[in-house]
């Protein structure tokens, strides 16, 4: 899947769950930089991402997602399969 398509879909998910657009989409973006992205919304976002791309994460992959770039890479590796 094209990287830009993934990024756009992710942006939609973040806006839907967090209910604001006050973040810059870039690879280094991490949860700590975004208002309202806490342990509560994190799993909601993860669930939405899985549904949107029809993929399943492993728990260990989640631990390794330190920022948006990591997330995109893991999604990419799964949708291409």
């Amino acid at each position, binding site marked *: 899947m094209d990287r830009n398509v993934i990024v756009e879909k992710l942006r939609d998910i973040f806006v839907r769950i967090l*209910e604001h657009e006050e973040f810059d989409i870039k690879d280094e973006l991490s949860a700590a930089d975004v208002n*309202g992205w806490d*342990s*509560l919304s994190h*799993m*909601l976002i*993860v*669930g939405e991402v*899985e549904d949107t791309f029809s993929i399943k994460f492993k*728990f*260990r992959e*989640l*631990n*390794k997602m330190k920022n948006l770039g990591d997330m995109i890479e893991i999604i990419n590796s799964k949708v291409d399969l």
Partner: protein
Amino acid sequence: MVFTSFNFLIFFPIVIFMYFVTPQRYRWLTLLIVSYFFYINIEPVFALLTAAISLSTYFFTRLIDGTNDEKKKNKYMVINIILILLPLFFYKYFNEINNSIFMFLDQFNVRWPLPKIKLLLPIGISYYTFMAIGYTIDVYSEEIKAEKNLGIVALFISFFPLILSGPIERANNMLPQFRSGKNPDYDMISSGAKLMLWGYFMKLVVADRTGIYINSIFENAEFHNGSSLIVATLLYPIQVYGDLGGYSLIAIGVSKILGINVMDNFRRPFFATSMSEFWRRWHISLISWLTDYLYTPLTFAFRKYKIWGIVIALMITFILSGLWHGASLAFLVWGVMQGVLLSIEALTNKKKLTFEKKFNLNNNRLYIIISIIITYILFATTEIFGRGTDINEAITIFHKMFTTSGNIFIGTSSIVIYMIFGITLLLLKDFTDEFYPNKFLLFESKYKIVRIVSFSFVFILILLIGVLDGSQFIYFQF
């Protein structure tokens, strides 16, 4: 040997001396030896347990690291967790389960004449078991590499400042520090000494003075009226804060003097404005441990239920946390109460944020004060069930609070005066640290004379009104 014992006052200077004369690369060995000495001093046989947990954890983490087979990695992790949990389960729940079975059989007139085993819970067993489990999972999740030096793993699990009551540390913070054995600088030593001093104040002056007053009420609850019970209930969180918070500060201070940085365990908990914030400030090392190794995996497992998955995870986490405190109905109620309060906050979180934004309440002093008071009262109420009493007593206290009134019990007036004085001082310090972080500095004042006067003042206070007869720490029993 505990921090408030006379023995520790002799032990610690000797440890410092031994630590600094040891060459840096062997300092872990010195710490390991003195840690075992410290623990053996409490009950020799318990040291076998820490040794066994260390060996098992060392062995299985090396196995996890040594294979690429995911299934094997998982298997080794699970085996080690089960193995090291066995002693904890045995010591904590054996008697309760035994009694329940006897009582159950007794109802059918079946009597099973087994002798009762009197078990003494190895002090600190939960803390080092949790640390060992955390380390095992971290190696499995590839957060850290398995340590190759058995001595360092053994030290991580038995490090004497933390072994009795935490903070529950993580391997990725401690192992590199044990390996390097670096010298503490002047700032570390002085801040360590300050933390110890304040920790002793919190324990000996605040917690133990308050404890005398509270116990005289709670232990004779049937003779006291609702007003006194309300006062005791409202004071209890302060006693626990002084007790475990004070212990933690001494532990952190002792470690700092040895050049080792340990995580905070409390961050001015009584200024939290919601229960979820409260739990990010109270017993932080336990809560972050539960969050990482229990709550987060649970939310992941239940993620398809969206927000309700989080509610399920919160309930399970706090019910287990309650039952960890003890296998009793009261602790179960405590866990359910915490879970329900946090779930309500999770479910209403968005509405609350919108509401606060709409009326610009985040900087509204009155709103903040009211939120702080409500949070405190909620926590104090749940603690009626979290004190380790049986459920009937907790319910009686709860019931009496609203049905009987009268004058507040004073008892010995000097105890009450000392108690109020100690609590005021503690809360005042937390208040300025919270709202005016760089003002009214005493311990950290830039004027030497202010620093010296304030240390001496606290030191004299401890000697004058501290309870110095070596009482127990509440959290040792867990």
